[in-house]
């Protein structure tokens, strides 16, 4: 276990050494503050559009950070040839995968904490209302979702040739799931057989990342989602993350390192 945490620690250090996070955070902050400074009809109480915009930027930034961080972990180790001394420690390939996974997931969690603190301060100071539990729940659900994305990206980094292609493909896949995932069953019903069965199969196979998107609820003050439902969603995510990690390990186990 210590080996896994040691590997994870290196990934976290990498996050604050790289510029990605800082650039995305500054961009999010500048756009949010600029949007928040606009007064519509001289009404200071209008706040939901700012929350909506800020959360959208947080989601995009978090996905970019997570996918970009996870996609380059194993290819970079192979390219720099640091994978050989690492595996000679001795560290098993499974431990490398787990260490990289936990490192990327924790790193995205650290970034997400900073983003959510900014979100809470910006919107809370404007509407003088602090639903801390709602923010915490939204953060936890998004972080759980990022765990699945991290595992998916690690699998992609083993399959695809270069980190750039992994990032592009994963971003398209994740965006596709987030936009279309919940509607695939409706689309399937409007199609004839055998297309209907094909779409329905895809609907049941893909990880429904959109389950963890509670932005609409947060923006419109719908209150907390039942924690039991959150627990079910977390189990669902854990199953998918485990499956992707297993597939990553199987692919990495047979992969030539040269």
């Amino acid at each position: 276990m210590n080996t896994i945490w040691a590997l994870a620690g290196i990934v976290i250090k990498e996050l604050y050494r790289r510029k990605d996070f800082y650039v995305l955070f500054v961009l999010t902050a500048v756009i949010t503050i600029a949007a928040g400074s606009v007064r519509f009809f001289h009404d200071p109480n209008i706040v939901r559009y700012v929350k909506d915009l800020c959360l959208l930027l947080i989601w995009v930034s978090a996905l970019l950070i997570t996918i970009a961080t996870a996609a380059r972990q194993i290819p970079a180790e192979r390219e720099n040839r640091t994978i050989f001394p690492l595996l000679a420690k001795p560290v098993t390939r499974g431990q490398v995968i787990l260490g990289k996974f936990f490192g990327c997931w924790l790193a995205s969690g650290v970034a997400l904490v900073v983003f959510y603190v900014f979100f809470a301060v910006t919107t809370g100071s404007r509407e003088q209302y602090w639903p801390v539990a709602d923010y915490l729940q939204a953060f936890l659900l998004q972080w759980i979702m990022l765990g699945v994305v991290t595992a998916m990206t690690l699998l992609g980094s083993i399959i695809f040739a270069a980190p750039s292609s992994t990032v592009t493909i994963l971003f398209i896949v994740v965006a596709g799931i987030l936009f279309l995932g919940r509607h695939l069953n409706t689309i399937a019903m409007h199609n004839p057989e055998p297309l209907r069965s094909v779409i329905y199969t895809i609907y049941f196979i893909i990880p429904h990342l959109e389950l963890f998107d509670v932005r609409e609820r947060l923006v419109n003050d719908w209150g907390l989602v039942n924690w039991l439902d959150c627990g079910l969603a977390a189990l669902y995510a854990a199953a998918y993350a485990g499956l992707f990690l297993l597939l990553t390990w199987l692919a990495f186990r047979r992969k030539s390192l040269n």
Partner: protein
Amino acid sequence: MKTIPPGWWLTLLLTMCFTLATLFVPRAAWWNAVPRVADWNGRSQSDNVFKLLLGEGRRLFGNEMFTMADVYFHSGYYPSIFDQQETEHDVAMPAHGQTEDANSTGDDFLGPPRDWIAALDRRFVPNQHTHLDSGGASGHLKKAGVQEILPWLKLASEMNPQMIETYTVGAYWLQTGLHNPAEAQAFLFEGLHNNPGNSELLFDLGRLYYESYQDVNRARNVWLAALRCWEAQSADVKAGPQARFVCDEITMNLAHLEENERNWPQAIQYLQKVKQVSPNPDAIQKQIDEARKAMAAQTSTPAAPPH
């Protein structure tokens, strides 16, 4: 060779910057005309930031922005492009004097969940039909105000300044929901600036003067102007159901105004005009008969002797 100290370089650069600024600023006077985002409130159609960026193509986004206002009005509970679509925007209905219809989002547009994933998904998204003017999702009127729709209406008007509904709906909620007639008036003026002589906007402006400012004379004048603008339209336009509805509203309000002022002949004249465009002329005829009776009673009653 002797090196120049950094302080001198800095002085030289600052001097160059100042010189270039004095040279370029007068030439770049157009920059002063570029709208700042913070100035959106007071700008007209001709110089808005979206026209600068998107040109005439911005009109395509006008409807989307208006729909976003309706989405916010429902606190996010809204059909997607894959669901059964709304035929009317609920946010606009009160402004048109209508109540919610049976096909509104009040119905469960999603239907029963098809599978366990859909059932679980509904716990994480807005899942109840609410309106912001009745407290929204939280049910607290103070916490969730109808003001949240205003940015989208403002953006819709910036995107498509010829979309009349944006101004009428925005002014309605500013006037009734937020009790801010001054901003409602300014928004209607902006609409009239972009759509001169529009009878719908003039009617709403008259209603604002009548209901919020209790300024009967100004309301009468604006409604008369609205009626003149309506009359000036082509026969084809006037025959349309929307145009007939606007005429009905203007003349009916003028009739009520004159009734309240005890100007019975004018009131009857306007009611006769309403009868021509109303979908229910019999009911209007009854009102005309009542007005005639009231006029007869008024003329038969001797004036009270002065004390």
